[in-house]
């Protein structure tokens, strides 16, 4: 695990307020369609194939990116805050590596 993913959301919110969450992961997202210029062999696909966000264990979103999502994938989505707690984001890639990050939010 190299670089920690970045998650941005407001520090505080009102109950049932809809806030925007922005996330960024450093990942090469190799599409599996490029050829190595020297050997002319296809570079195997190596992408994040699942992104999941949960809040206090309750599901928020699940995204299924394909090879057409840009490298260093950026995902933004809305979250309806039910209570104070912690948002957890999990990225899983083709080599089975799991990236995880969380951020807490208070009720103002």
């Amino acid at each position: 695990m190299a670089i920690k993913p970045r998650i941005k959301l407001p520090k505080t919110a009102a109950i049932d307020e809809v806030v925007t969450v922005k996330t960024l992961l450093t990942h090469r997202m190799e599409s599996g369609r490029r050829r190595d210029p020297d050997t002319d062999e296809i570079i195997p696909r190596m992408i994040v194939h699942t992104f999941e966000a949960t809040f206090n264990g309750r599901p928020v979103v699940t995204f299924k990116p394909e090879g057409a999502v840009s490298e260093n994938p950026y995902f933004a989505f809305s979250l309806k805050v039910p209570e104070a707690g912690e948002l957890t984001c999990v990225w899983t890639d083709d080599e089975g590596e799991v990236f995880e990050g969380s951020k807490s939010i208070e009720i103002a």
Partner: protein
Amino acid sequence: MNLSRRRALALGGAVVTVSLVPVNMALALTEETQGVIDAFTGGAAVAEGGVTLTMPELAENGGAVPMTVAAPGAVSIVIVADGNPRPEVITFNFEELSGNSEASTRIRLAQTQSVIAVAEMADGSFASTSVEVSVTLGGCG
């Protein structure tokens, strides 16, 4: 025929208007694109509207084109790029706490093309929209 400047301009305007209208109405999709959409909808009818797909009209770098989709009440949205070698781009699933079913990311576009968003609503119906994006430099490497 002797065209006055005014007539020539009016004619030109008419041609532009006509060519702009049909884009959203009858998209000629590739078989692969249609296949991805059918797999998502199960062959159900898809209505126009109810989905907002925001992308730049002109993307200089096809390697990272910003994209935002919103469909209030949607449980799932699939993004399909008609001119990419593999058309499926991403599927967004919205669950219990997802607020207003809105998501953004950055995508790769190989060439100038239509990008289509198909949303599945909570009641099981489907809605779609599409935008045309001009790409200066393709981004599928």
